[in-house]
């Protein structure tokens, strides 16, 4: 449990030396409790107290970084079982599997897919993060060559997969600076794999066949100085795998059980041979608590829905996604096309633009910044009323883009039409439908 400022204060040297930058130890303790200061700033703290404070301050699920640099993936650090309790923090990474036994052309095709599959949505770039290279040949040189191909041709974070510490070491030799994730330390190879992780400061997967065995394994790993751990409970039946994901998270959060306080990795491709089913199974683990989802393969049709689902589930429930204020063309609008206005709540924008598209009437869609609020909420909060809409319409430049000066406002803001006509001289205000679904019918009657 996190300590209070007073509890921390009791452990500090109480010298009020000021070298931490705070006037007193009490002030420093208060800042520590609020996570606004670093323990390292205190020069006099004993190792014993440091360990105690670090233990208390550590998050219940450790934040683990896979890879290095810009593309590094952070997983773990979760604090709740349900997103409505606060939010989910760090979206799971998607990994594309490459077996070193695959032929050249298959490997190249996968590298190309990995690099090309990238999507823009709500001004975010959605893409997979990891490539998992699996030793199947048992051949050190072959594994090393495959890893090096992945390293040279992609900026992916890498997972090295082999039961053999020697083969893992061969892979590490070519990509150690990428801080790859080692898969996996088991009961049988714990010490050599742990030693590779220590020497290269790499994260490592602990793999067992039960949660009990897994907890013992991670305790051994942390005792040996390896702290960046990812968990594989070993379950390959869907039911058991889901149960393990839930129990690992809930044990770490509600019981503060450190040995399971790590992010997890799952392998939907080892639960089915059907690629479509694999993708749907992966969608379960996006919502239910995985840190890394390794896919035996992916294509645009399967990766895209997974990436969007992940974005949805990991959206902060308290902070709606918003898009930039501006003029958005739908279809290829010209100077005679209708002009509609809505708010910048991303969902509102998606629905309105999709309905305009359905209508097949090319239109200019004005999106007003309402700090991510939907039409009714923004209107009620004074952010989508004549006083704020009019200045935006004037300055956004739409006047020069259309010959007619007709503005279609959402049906729910009909009451603003009078004031808008006053504040936008020369514009005629038309009241559109209340519901997005009725936009197509409405637009079909459009006359410039």
């Amino acid at each position, binding site marked *: 449990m996190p300590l209070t400022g007073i509890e921390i204060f009791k452990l500090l040297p109480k010298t009020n030396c000021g070298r931490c930058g705070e006037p007193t130890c009490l002030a420093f303790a208060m800042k520590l409790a609020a996570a606004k200061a670093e323990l390292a700033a205190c020069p006099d703290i004993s190792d014993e107290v440091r360990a105690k404070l670090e233990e208390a301050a550590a998050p219940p699920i450790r934040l683990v970084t896979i890879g290095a640099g810009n593309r590094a993936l952070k997983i773990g650090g979760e604090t709740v079982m*349900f*997103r*409505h309790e606060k939010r989910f923090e760090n979206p799971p990474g998607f990994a594309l599997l490459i077996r070193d036994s695959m032929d050249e052309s298959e490997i190249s095709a996968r590298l*190309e*897919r990995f690099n*090309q*599959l990238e*999507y823009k*949505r709500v001004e975010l770039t959605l893409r997979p993060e990891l490539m998992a290279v699996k030793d199947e040949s048992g051949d050190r040189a072959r594994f090393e060559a495959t890893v090096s191909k992945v390293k040279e041709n992609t900026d992916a974070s890498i997972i090295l997969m082999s039961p053999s510490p020697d083969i893992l070491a061969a892979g590490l030799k070519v990509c150690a600076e990428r801080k790859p994730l080692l898969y996996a330390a088991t009961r049988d190879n714990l010490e050599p794999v742990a030693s590779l992780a220590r020497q290269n400061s790499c994260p490592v997967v602990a793999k067992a066949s*039960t*949660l*009990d065995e897994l*907890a*013992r394994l991670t*305790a051994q790993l942390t005792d040996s100085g390896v702290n960046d751990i990812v968990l594989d409970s070993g379950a*390959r*039946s*869907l*039911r*058991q795998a*889901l*149960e393990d994901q*839930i*129990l690992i998270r*809930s*044990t770490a959060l*509600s*019981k503060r*059980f*450190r*040995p*399971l306080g790590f992010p997890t990795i799952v392998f939907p491709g080892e639960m089915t041979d059907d690629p*479509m*089913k694999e*993708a*749907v199974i992966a*969608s*379960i683990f996006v*919502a239910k608590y995985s840190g890394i989802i390794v896919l035996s393969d992916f*294509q*645009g*049709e*399967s*990766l*895209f*829905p*997974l990436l*969007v*689902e992940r974005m*949805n*589930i990991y*959206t902060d*429930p308290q902070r709606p996604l918003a898009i930039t204020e501006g003029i958005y063309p739908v279809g290829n609008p010209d100077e005679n096309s209708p002009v509609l206005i809505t708010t910048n709540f991303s*969902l509102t924008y*998606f*629905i309105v633009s*999709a309905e305009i*598209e*359905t209508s097949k009437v090319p239109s200019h869609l004005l999106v007003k910044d309402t700090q991510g609020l939907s039409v009714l909420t923004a209107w009620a909060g004074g952010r989508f009323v004549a006083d704020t809409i009019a200045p935006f319409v004037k300055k956004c430049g739409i006047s020069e883009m259309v010959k007619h000066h007709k503005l279609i406002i959402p049906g729910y803001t009909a009451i603003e039409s009078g004031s808008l006509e006053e504040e936008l001289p020369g514009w005629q205000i038309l009241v559109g439908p209340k519901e997005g679904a009725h936009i197509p*019918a409405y637009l079909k009657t459009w006359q410039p």
Partner: protein
Amino acid sequence: MAYDKIPKTAYNGRIKEIRLGKGDTAVTVGGETCYPFYLFEGKMPNLPRIAMEVWDTSPEDWPEAALEPFQGVTGDPVAWARKCVTDFGAEMICLQLVSTDPNGLDRGADEAAAVVKNVAEVITVPLIVWGTANHDKDTRVLRKVAEVNEGRNLILGPVEEGDYKKIGAAAIGYQHTVIASTPIDINLAKQLNILLGNLGVRDELLIIDPTVSSIGYGIEYCYSVMERIRTAALTQQDKKLQYPLICNVAKEVWKTKEAKLPADGALTLGDTRKRGILLEAMSAMVLLLGGGDVLIMRHPEAIRLVQEIITELAAPKNN
């Protein structure tokens, strides 16, 4: 360190069991004593069920992938429903009364009720009848549907705050189940259930529609509202939320741009047909994890995937 601190959710509630349809092919849903598929903590005596969607008029905006399985029957709701049952093994049918939309074809109540009756007569599985969410029109149409199909235990909706009295009364009078529909809000859902209860709708004749959407179009809101409804029902003894949940998801998925977009060979978009199927199956999966008991789905392949996964999630543990 030994793992001996297995946590357990403190459940104190149970979802009511309701029986949909009549006779041998009636389907029971609900009865859960744990979160969806948390079978290490409780029971799901009735696994979630899937109703196949049938439209009462030829769909104009369905992508090819969704139309293809129903080629030749999409203009005939009776043949369409029969095909769903015989060819695809549908356990339930949901007839969407799209043609009654006043902003569309605006077909009358009598005609709609006759179509429902014709469909009901050729199938034995439970029949869900879904209006257009226009209060005036649904009131006229669904009351007529209820009357003409007296005693069949149809599942009628959406019944909303703006039209619950008249539709609810008709459902009570002619013995049908009510779909209590509210816009993604736990408090509104509870309030409507209370109103329907006060009106006289019996507990075993009510199912909640929390209003759902697809991946990419706000599914996270539905997911969280469903999770909150289940949390209140199972751990906070909120009796007025202890009802099964129904999710009318297919039409939300297949109307999206992403389900329709032709790939034109672009690697990023992949195969159009498979993309639509996966969007539907994954959206359904998210809603199942939120607590969905009945899913209204469209593509037979998406349905197969979801059914197989439901079976696996509930498979006996002996591996």
